[in-house]
């Protein structure tokens, strides 16, 4: 067992950025307020002082140019990590992400790789309203050529970010703004986490719960109550949404024969829909009950605390779904 320290997720991300920059001088950061200001959530704090204005570039409020510029630098020998302050603002950079970055490798006949990472926080829980709380990862998972990653803890955040920066493809690295302060272990030295590998966050025999991001923690909250009722859920933290770890999900389903997919994003047309469809195909013979999805309702993220807490997926909603498929 190697040594570990306890750090916040935001700190682990900052450390991964710093280590990648120290390792490879072609790694540069671009984003709004990431330099002298240390980043809107403090993730990049200290990097400007350490690496200077040439490598930690404070970008104007121009999201389309931000990702396009990062792509141009990636095509000219650099490994840019661009930060989009809120995932909702990706809407302004969709051409650069979807038409340009995702396509360049394939469309140019594999002449070039696109070593580009776009970090961006999704998720609600801060009463930030409908334009600062969305979980839009499934848009990017739908675009061939993009990789989509979403860690739930400091060790995975570090390990996946280092792997994303080293990857020759454009990666949308999804963080969760409500979880930046969440603490957890980070190994010394920290380990790289391979893209495309899920993690069994909790073993259980009765129901497989496939999750990612904040929902992993909500599933962990639900587990003791369910265990008290004799129900042991197996929680899979996907970690990578595209390409997702189908083998790990299928192996768990072969053990539990029941599947719930649980995420913070809107349920309809979501990540859960893809996993459910795939498991209904390749895992059909393993299923003893219909697959259930638990996600956000088909509604913009509301502002008022009373509304947002009713809107958000939760341990309670998961518990109800798990019990339902066991009946």
């Amino acid at each position, binding site marked *: 067992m190697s040594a570990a320290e306890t750090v916040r997720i935001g700190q682990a991300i900052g450390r991964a950025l710093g280590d990648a920059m120290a390792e490879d001088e072609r790694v*540069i950061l671009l984003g709004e307020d990431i330099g002298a200001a240390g980043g809107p959530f403090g993730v990049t704090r200290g990097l400007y002082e350490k690496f200077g204005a*040439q490598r930690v*570039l404070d*970008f*104007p409020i*121009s999201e*389309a*140019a931000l*990702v*396009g*510029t*990062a*792509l*141009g*630098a*990636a*095509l*000219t*020998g*650099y490994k*840019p990590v661009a930060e989009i302050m809120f995932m909702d603002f990706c809407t302004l950079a969709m*051409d*650069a992400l979807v*038409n*340009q970055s995702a*396509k*360049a*490798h*394939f*469309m*140019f*006949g*594999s*002449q*070039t*790789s*696109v070593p580009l990472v776009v970090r961006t926080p999704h998720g609600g829980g801060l009463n930030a309203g409908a334009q600062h709380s969305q979980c839009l990862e499934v848009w990017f998972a739908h675009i*061939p*050529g993009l*990789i989509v990653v979403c860690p739930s803890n400091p060790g995975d955040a570090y390990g996946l970010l280092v792997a994303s920066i080293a990857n*020759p*493809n454009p990666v949308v690295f999804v963080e969760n703004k409500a979880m930046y302060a969440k603490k957890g272990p980070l190994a010394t030295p920290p380990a790289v986490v391979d893209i495309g590998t899920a993690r069994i966050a909790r073993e259980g025999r009765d129901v497989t719960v496939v999750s990612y991001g904040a929902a992993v923690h909500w599933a962990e909250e639900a587990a003791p109550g369910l265990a008290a009722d004799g129900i042991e859920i197996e929680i899979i933290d996907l970690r990578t949404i595209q390409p997702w770890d189908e083998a790990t999900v299928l192996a768990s389903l072969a053990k539990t024969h029941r599947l719930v997919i649980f995420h913070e994003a809107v349920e309809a047309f979501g990540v859960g829909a893809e996993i459910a469809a795939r498991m209904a195909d390749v895992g059909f013979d393993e299923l003893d009950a219909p697959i259930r999805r638990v996600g956000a309702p088909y509604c913009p993220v509301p502002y008022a605390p009373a509304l947002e807490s009713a809107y958000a997926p939760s341990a309670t909603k998961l518990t109800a779904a798990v019990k339902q498929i066991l009946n």
Partner: protein
Amino acid sequence: MNDDSQNSLPPEPLPFSESERLVDCYRLMQRIRKVEEHLCALFADGVIPGFIHVSIGQESVPVGISRHLSDDDTIAITHRGHGQAIAKGIKLGPFFAEMMGKRDGICKGRAGSMHIADTTIGILGANGIVGGGISIATGSALAHKLDGAGNIAVAYFGDGALAEGIFHECINLCALWSLPCLLVCENNGWGEFSKTERQFCGDLERMAAAFDVHYCFVDGIDVGAVTTAAGDIITAMRADPRPHVLECKVERFHGHYEGDPQKYRDEAELAALAERDPIIHLRKRLIASGIASAVLDEIEAKLENEIGSVVAAARAGAEPNFAEASLEVYAQ
């Protein structure tokens, strides 16, 4: 056919080096013209699928610029970018094969006219999105600035891109960070099927001035003027990295896309285009300065031979295989 009989230019001999330079320009402009004439014919015959947008009438711009660029300088080109790619040095065999969607295409048949690239010589891709390449060139200019080796990036765009938000974001960034990005507006007066004046009421010169970016206007009928202006600008940019705007007035002889019947253009305008042909203009000038028309004819004949055999070879190429292509969605 070139009409050498009309000659309104003064018959002054050009200095030797100047005439040599302009003969080079003539050769390259004719190369682009003849390639695109072949593309049009191949498209009409159904040999080239999809959409193509030709730059006939606009050849002087990339020819005047590219002679000052090395393979390490980068360019982002437009959907009307054949000339920009050829002037930068793309090889005609893989170019034609790409247009035909062949396996030996420079992009393995996955790009076609609208997305062709050759990153080995700094062509970071044509773009199906109007203005889509401007931010890519901006980012490439950032890389050049960080490298500090004096290279530059060129963003080609048309006047149709002036109303795109990305242009405004990028000219700000280029100026804010003093990026060595040459913003080249090929102003042909048309944004797709509508006159630019119906789409854009700004003024590029004053926009550049608003960001304190140096602006230069050249009439693209004169490749010599484009070459001189681009040379001065690019020399300055290598020594002192900062953005420049170069606006070149050109004419779009063909439609927005090949096959466009152009019912939205009046006949008088179409009939007057020949007066604005930069190749005819240069030919007259060269002959007036003492270059024998036989020399120019020979250049054209050689090009025809070369292009004819390249086209024949490309047509004989194999079709690409989807199973192979589908394995390359991601870089390994």
